[in-house]
């Protein structure tokens, strides 16, 4: 019974945390630019307004289905990641399963955007998929590295190992090379500057989301909120020792997000080929060196 | 001697076109008046023989009292740095388009100037590939730069203004000032 309650409420809890984190990011960036920002609950208002639109422009059933695939892929990933208090599915799935299902949202968006026949959307989604090839390779190498280091692929075991040993056994202390590589790849995965070319607003009219309005965009924003929390949680579980209770979890989320936002606020945007080149020049060799370190 | 370079250019051109009237207006400016049938030959010689490679503009003047349009072609030479303005006159039609030939097969950008003159003055350039409007698209009215097109009258009749009768305007109109 407990499990059923968790299944129903976990998306809602993570959604609420995600929207507050996104609101916090807008406020933080506004304060860096020396202006007041929107209130922290601004993303709630945005999503509410988008779901409240009266007319709808649909481009066929594939377009509608693709949005559901986007949200469904993220929710599926969410259930496999252990959060404090709920790890029912996480004991059946491990790091490799998460690697697979993390790709479903991007593919869902590609299907939906391809259906709209808007050139801005096609350019945006091709950039997004190229960036995916850029940041996913170092990121998954770090997964494999951590799995090899601790002789287990289950994320739950990794968390227990780190929590049993205290701070000295956190992933980022025992293997800092892999930690730094994963941190840079994480910045690309979240879509923060300088790797924000997927959503370049003034170049290609928000890229893949050009033809999405109203309820489609509302669902995409929900997915973005949950997606941010999931990706940060993966990093926390692998490298920052997991979390014992919800308070520690939320603190770690916000501290990590603030660090990444500080880089976001002061950088411009790399071009797609520059970004992929950067990803393959710096995090990828670091990840390879880290894995080699473990082997020998 | 002043205007040595310009006078030497004028002499060279006068030999080929004896019926044209040349005048050196000031430093680096030469004015030519041609009969309209000779313009195409003049333009070909300009581009190929005398090295005036740059067509700066084509402009049009509406001489309503003479019943003629005057087309002015501005040619510029990069080496000598001299501007030659070739002026021709074509008859002006009251209704419909006046016709002239195009020079867009010599200079590609001449197409834009000719389209502009076509929609503003109503001069059709035969032989050009593309005579569509590009500034006043979706607007159907007479060519607006002609001197018998009264802008204010057209605007007041065609568009709908808001009714606005404040007291200060009524006072002004009663005193005889202000306009409609």
């Amino acid at each position, binding site marked *: 019974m407990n499990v059923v309650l968790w299944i129903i409420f976990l998306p809602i809890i993570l959604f609420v945390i995600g929207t507050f984190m996104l609101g916090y990011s*807008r406020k933080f960036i*506004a304060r860096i*630019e*020396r*202006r*007041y*920002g*929107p*209130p922290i609950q*601004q993303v*709630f*208002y*945005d999503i*509410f*307004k988008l779901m*409240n*639109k*009266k*007319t*709808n*422009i649909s481009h066929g059933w594939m377009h509608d289905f693709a949005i559901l695939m986007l949200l469904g892929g993220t929710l599926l990933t969410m259930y496999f990641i252990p959060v404090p208090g709920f790890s029912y599915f996480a004991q059946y799935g491990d790091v490799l399963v998460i690697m697979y299902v993390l790709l479903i949202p991007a593919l869902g968006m590609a299907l939906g955007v391809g259906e709209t026949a808007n050139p*801005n959307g096609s350019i945006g989604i091709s950039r997004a998929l190229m960036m995916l090839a850029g940041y996913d390779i170092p990121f998954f190498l770090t997964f494999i590295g951590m799995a090899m280091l601790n002789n287990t692929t289950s994320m739950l075991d990794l968390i227990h190992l780190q929590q049993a040993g205290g701070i000295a056994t956190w992933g980022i202390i025992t293997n800092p090379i892999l930690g730094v590589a994963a941190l840079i790849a994480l910045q690309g995965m979240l879509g923060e500057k300088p790797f924000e070319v997927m959503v370049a*607003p*003034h170049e290609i*009219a*928000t890229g893949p*989301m*050009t*033809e*999405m*309005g*109203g309820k489609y*965009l509302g669902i995409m924003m929900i997915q973005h909120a949950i997606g941010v929390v999931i990706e940060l949680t993966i990093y926390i579980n692998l490298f920052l020792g997991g979390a014992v209770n919800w308070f520690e979890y939320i603190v770690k989320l916000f501290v990590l997000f603030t660090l990444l936002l500080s880089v976001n606020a002061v950088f411009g945007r790399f071009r797609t080929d520059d970004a992929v080149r950067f990803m393959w020049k710096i995090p990828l060799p670091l990840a390879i060196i880290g894995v080699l370190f473990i082997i020998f | 001697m002043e205007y040595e370079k310009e006078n030497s250019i004028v002499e060279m051109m006068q030999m080929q076109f004896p019926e044209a009237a040349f005048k050196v207006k000031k430093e680096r400016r030469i004015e030519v008046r041609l009969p309209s049938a000779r313009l195409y030959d003049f333009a070909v010689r300009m581009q190929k023989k005398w090295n005036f490679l740059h067509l700066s503009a084509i402009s049009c003047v509406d001489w309503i009292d003479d019943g003629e349009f005057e087309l002015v072609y501005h040619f510029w030479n990069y080496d000598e740095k001299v501007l030659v303005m070739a002026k021709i006159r074509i008859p002006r039609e009251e209704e419909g388009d006046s016709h002239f030939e195009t020079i867009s097969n010599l200079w590609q950008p001449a197409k834009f100037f000719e389209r502009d003159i076509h929609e503003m003055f109503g001069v059709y350039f035969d032989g050009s590939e593309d005579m569509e409007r590009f*500034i*006043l*698209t*979706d*607007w*159907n*009215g007479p060519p*607006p730069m002609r001197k018998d*097109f009264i*802008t*204010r009258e*057209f*605007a*007041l009749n*065609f*568009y*709908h*203004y*808001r009714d*606005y009768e404040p007291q200060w305007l009524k006072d002004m109109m009663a005193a005889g000032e202000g306009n409609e």
Partner: protein
Amino acid sequence: MDEKMTQRSVWEKIAAKLSKRSLWMLHYCTGCGAIELPPTMTARFDMERFGINPMVTPRQADILLITGYLSVKTLKRVVLTYEQMQAPKYVVGFGSCTINGGMYWNSYATMKSLDRYIPVETYIAGCMPRPEAIIYSFNELIAKIDRGEANSWKDYYNNYDFYRENQEHTFEGPIETYNDIKADAALFRI
């Protein structure tokens, strides 16, 4: 063009209170008034604290800001853009050129009164209005949404023949729109 507030249900009142705090403005600079938008958006007269962001596609925007004069060529594109936006949508006429022609009142190619082509919610007077005036009028629009009086978008669906006739009178011929307004009005019960 104002429809007086009729009986609103509780859900509509809550929806108005929540959705008035997030209005996205289409970043479409039609005329010379657009020069006043960057100061309004940046740090000195911050517009984002009211929830108003610039957004670049008409599919995602709520407010269409007609800044300045509209020549006939631009008017056709604005009509097409307006029809691509999703309801509820608000048009704000910016500057005196949209009110009664402004500085170009006797020009042969600009439209004089925006009201006849697309339904307008509020106007901002000035040539150009300062950023303080822009923010004041956005607050007025937010208050109007809160009271439930900002319903001019429904007028486009209900009185489409009036607008279409005016549009076709100004343009060279019948224009080709990509949205079927009457079918949409029946489909979404507006």
